């Protein structure tokens, strides 16, 4: 008897489709080359003006400019990649890299705020060193997080994040 029904969508084929979709997402999760250097430069600038204990007007302008810059950067990333991830999407390996980065940023930021608490600027060499650490850590560890996330998505080891709603 002729049967015009389509073949059933069997579980193995469905799982293969899921794997294919995951690979597609991982391939899209390529952060533009300019993203981490720009983010690092913004953080470095904010830390530098704080560590050098420059005039409050300068610190305010740089901080506001940095906040606006980060907002524009995120928007540019989203337009370029067509997706957005946040820390809730991190898997076990990428989460470790992210926490390592967070610790470095907290230490560097805390150090750069010493002048705010004490009223005395840090030596220029130390201020520049803090800014350089922020810049390099953002570039190196940011790319490490991305790389780990891509691998986790491909393998299906990515976390199951909680949605906001």
């Amino acid at each position: 008897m002729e049967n015009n029904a389509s073949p059933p969508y069997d579980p193995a084929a469905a799982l293969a489709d899921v794997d294919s979709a995951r690979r597609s997402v991982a391939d899209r999760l390529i952060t533009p080359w300019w993203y981490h250097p720009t983010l690092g430069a913004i953080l470095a600038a904010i830390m530098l003006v704080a560590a050098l204990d420059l005039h409050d007007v300068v610190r305010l302008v740089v901080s506001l400019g940095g906040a606006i810059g980060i907002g524009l950067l995120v928007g540019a990333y989203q337009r370029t990649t067509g997706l957005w991830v946040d820390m809730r999407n991190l898997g076990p390996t990428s989460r470790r890299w992210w926490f390592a980065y967070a610790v470095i940023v907290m230490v560097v930021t805390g150090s750069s705020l010493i002048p705010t608490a004490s009223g005395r600027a840090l030596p220029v060499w130390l201020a520049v060193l803090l800014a350089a650490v922020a810049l390099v850590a953002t570039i190196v560890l940011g790319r490490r997080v991305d790389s780990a996330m891509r691998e986790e998505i491909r393998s299906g080891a990515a976390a199951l994040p909680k949605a906001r709603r």
Partner: protein
Amino acid sequence: MMARRAAARFDEIIHAPHRLRICALLAPVESMEFGTVRDDLGVADSVLSKQFKVLTDAGYATTSKAAAPTGRARTWLALTRSGRKAFAGHLQALRELAAAAEGEPLARSASVAGAGVESPDRDRGDEHGQADDPQQ
């Protein structure tokens, strides 16, 4: 393997091929732009809108609009918490069904037949339909 093993639960809403792929695309990310999902599926806007509406009606997905510098709002798609849980449970059910069906014809697998596995083309009609504009 998902980081957190979910309880197996076959989900008819998610299992349709396009909707399964939509969920698989959205699960690893916070959100994905409408056009990116559409291009990955290779379907018209209207097809994605129709399939995504089924997911949103089930409470599995949500949309948000974000203004672009060009002035045109971009639509972002995301899974809700219940959608992520349902997808994880469905994946686990698929793994169990695939394991059970291994080595035997699918048609003879009562568990698969009983799960109401549907045709791969069941939700693939109208792929070349007139595109509506979900971003209006």
